[in-house]
């Protein structure tokens, strides 16, 4: 693989939910270490696109290539061979995902949430996992919440724990699916700061977001989607500052930043 080869290559991707086609032939390359922001109105297919990448959604047509793994309508394959459930799980653990509803495990403490996968999936010792988790919790200012249950935390705190839970797996790729959409406005700042300072560090990342200012600040690429298509993509200053397409301009004008 050349250093400039895309980490994620999406070709002619189509996805339908029943009769509704939510992705209508998406072509997109994500270069290494890029931070790609995907913006667009609700229902444009942004979240679905991201969820296809780690195979939470099956796709109907086209292909997604990540390294030597290829996702098609037939499933997940590598070197022409269909992957087993365990191999798909291995593929997923290299891709961190943070969603808008946090999805912390409510029956586990903050520490339990974070160390479950490193100990269970990666085979770390409990002690190593706790050490690493504590270091990460310190970086997001939640060291004192290690023994708290998720239900006792604010949304912003829960989302920071969810980010730490993903990062401890040291994924090559991070996917953020509207990470601040479920948060009160005064809590989005702390989460965006953690994403910027901790999660994007040296990784390839895709962020679906409505926070245009944040997108402009952190991203290297911006993609504008509408109606299951990519309308425009390019540098943040260009797409968000001086959009070529009327539809992009209308959207940015409407969302007002």
């Amino acid at each position, binding site marked *: 693989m050349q250093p400039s080869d895309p980490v994620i290559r999406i070709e002619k991707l189509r996805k339908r939910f029943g009769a509704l086609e939510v992705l209508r032939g998406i072509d997109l390359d994500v270069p290494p270490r890029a931070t790609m922001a995907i913006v667009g109105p609700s229902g444009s297919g942004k979240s679905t696109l991201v969820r296809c990448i*780690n195979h*939470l959604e099956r796709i109907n047509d086209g292909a997604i290539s990540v390294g030597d793994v290829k996702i098609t309508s037939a499933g997940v394959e590598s070197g022409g061979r269909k992957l087993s*459930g*365990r191999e798909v*799980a*291995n593929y*997923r*653990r*290299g*891709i*961190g*995902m943070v*969603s808008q*509803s946090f*999805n*912390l*495990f*409510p*029956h586990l*403490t903050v520490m339990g949430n974070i160390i*479950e*996968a490193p100990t*269970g*999936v*990666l085979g770390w010792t409990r002690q190593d996992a706790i050490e690493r988790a504590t270091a990460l919790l310190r970086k997001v200012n939640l060291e004192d919440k290690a023994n*708290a*249950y*998720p*239900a*006792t935390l604010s949304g912003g705190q829960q989302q920071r724990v*969810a980010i730490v*839970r*993903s990062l401890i*797996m040291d994924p090559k790729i991070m996917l953020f699916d509207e990470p601040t959409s479920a948060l009160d406005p005064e809590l989005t700042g702390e989460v965006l700061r953690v994403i910027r300072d901790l999660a994007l560090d040296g990784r390839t990342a895709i962020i679906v977001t409505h926070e245009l200012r944040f997108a402009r600040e952190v991203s290297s690429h911006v993609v504008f989607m509408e109606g299951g298509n990519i309308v425009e993509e390019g540098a943040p200053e260009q797409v968000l500052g001086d959009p070529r397409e009327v539809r992009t301009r209308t959207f940015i004008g409407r969302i007002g930043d």
Partner: protein
Amino acid sequence: MSFTRLWGIFWEYRDVLLAGIKVTIALSILSMLLAAVLGLVVCLGTLAKSRLVRAPAVLYMEFCRNTPILVQLVWVHYAWPEIFGIKFDAFTSSLIALALQSSGYLAEEYRAGIESIDKGQFEAAQSLGMTYPRLMRKIVIPQAFIRILPGILNQFVICFKSTSIVSIIAVPDLMYQAGLIVSATFLPMPVYTAVALMYFLLVFAVSSAVRMLSRKLPMGGYFQTQQHAAV
């Protein structure tokens, strides 16, 4: 009849009654344990993708839930020897029949519990690289279990009460022992009244104990999260 004389009778037969209580308790606990495991296997079967696995699991579940316990008991004890060529003693037959009955209900209870777990929990676990068996074991089933604990307790109480029926194939449970005492003393009213009270106290003690235990689970406001997520 004076109270002292009545008490004298119970005192005289205390070992008979105690033996019956032991059998009743052993039978209900063992059959519930068996049913808990069987029910989980069947439940996972009903959730399987392959129809070859799903169909027999669903059939088993429906059969267990839709046949009377008395019929199951007699069927296991008198028909199984001819169908499967194995003859069980009365206690084992009772154990199997009670486990059959409860496992059908528990399987349904588990299934409802698992299906009530938010899809996001599955997805978060998958995103962390957990395989299906691991995410079920570590994330989904523990949460589902806590949600359905009241239902499991309820089934345990039903199972406990159902044990009284095994006296018809001469398992020496509390009910059977009471019958023995009645035929020796010709005092059905006081004996059966006392036995009814004993069942009541036992069931009441069990359900109160489990209720108290389930309140002490280290859940840190688990149900609050659920409400929060629903908003």
